[in-house]
Structure formats: C-alpha cells, structure tokens
C-alpha cells in the first residue's frame, strides 16, 4: 500500500520533468526539469529499497547518493554551457540556438 504512493509520486515527477524538457524553451527551465527527472529516480530508489530488506535498502540509498552527486556535476556543466551561450548571443531561448538543423 505504502509503496504505491511513492511510486506514483515518482512517476508524476518523472512525467512533469519529461514534459518540461520537451516543452520549455528557456535553457535554465529545461535544466530544472532534468533535475525533476533525477529526483523522481531518487524517490523510486529509496522507496523500492525500503521494500526489499536491509541489504536492498542500503543499496537503494547509496545509488540515490550517487545520483545526487552526479546531478550536481551535470547541472554545473549545464549552467556553464547555458551561460556561455548567453554571453555569446544574449539569449537562453533554446529555439533560437539553431545554426545547424539536424
């Protein structure tokens, strides 16, 4: 019973994050949406871990710790890239970054 609530929260957060990545134009907001996805993963990991006994609980929490630190590194790099683009073209609107069309 209790597990479902956490999974539901995780799934909702994940969907909001995916929607944000796809629909937002502002680079910083896209970065925030990606954070939402990673946090939904953390909720899942900790919740699943608590259901699986002691060993799984530790594994889940350690996995979540790694996700947190990697997310910090990723966002650091991402903000640096967005800032660089802002300096060079004074916009963070992703739709305007289209010199090359896939």
């Amino acid at each position, binding site marked *: *019973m209790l597990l479902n609530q956490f999974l539901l929260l995780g799934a909702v957060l994940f969907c909001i994050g995916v929607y944000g990545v796809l629909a937002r134009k502002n680079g910083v907001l896209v970065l925030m949406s990606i954070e939402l996805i990673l946090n939904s993963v953390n909720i899942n990991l900790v919740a699943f871990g608590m259901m699986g006994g002691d060993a799984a609980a530790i594994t889940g929490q350690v996995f979540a*710790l790694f996700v947190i*630190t990697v997310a*910090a*590194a990723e*966002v*650091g790099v991402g*903000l*640096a890239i967005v*800032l660089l683009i802002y300096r060079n073209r004074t916009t963070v609107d992703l739709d305007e970054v289209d010199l090359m069309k896939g």
Partner: protein
Amino acid sequence: MSDFLQAYLTVAVFGGTAGLLIAGVLGLGRLIRPSRPNPDKLTTYESGVDPVGSGFSQSQVRYYIFALLFVLFDVEAVFIFPWAVGLETYSYFGLVEMGIFVFILVLGLVYAWRKGVLRWV
C-alpha cells in the same frame, strides 16, 4: 474507510478550509473596494518615473562561479557524512580511501585558486 485515507481526510479538510478562506477574503475585498480603472495605475512606478531597459537584467557573474563551486564541493560532502559515522569500523583502510578522495577534491580547489576564480574582483 481505511486509517490511511482517514489520515489524508484531515489534510483535505485543512486544504479546503485554507482555499475557502482565501477565496472568501479576496471576494470580500472585491465587493467592498471601489473600482476606477486608470492607465496610470498600470505603470511600473506610480510615482511617475519610467523604467529604463528590459526587465531582465544581468546579475554579477562572479556570484555564479562561487555558487557553482559551493554546490560542487557541498555535494561531495554527501560521501563524507556516512563515512564519518562509520569511521571507527573502517579503521585505517577507510582513512586512506577518504584521504585519496579528499586529495583529488583539494586538487580541484587548487585548480580554481590558481585560475583566479576565488579572487573577489
């Protein structure tokens, strides 16, 4: 009704009361206050000074770099707290391992320092 849902019922009642209260107070204000629209009321500063430039202004970039360094080194501490709790059981093995981890982090800090990022300009 299960205990679980009953617990949430309190939350729902609480939330509903809060919503009603806000709606009531705002609605009351709307009924009582006079309504005289005037274009001057829509300007940014009613004192009459027109704003210059766009609303989106650039903040100091140096804050950004400090904030970034803080986030990176702060988050690395996440590995040090669990280690500190269990340091006695890990004994010298844990001490050496954490020493290597901190050494690499310190190299990063030295890098930032040598590149002049830490100087307040």
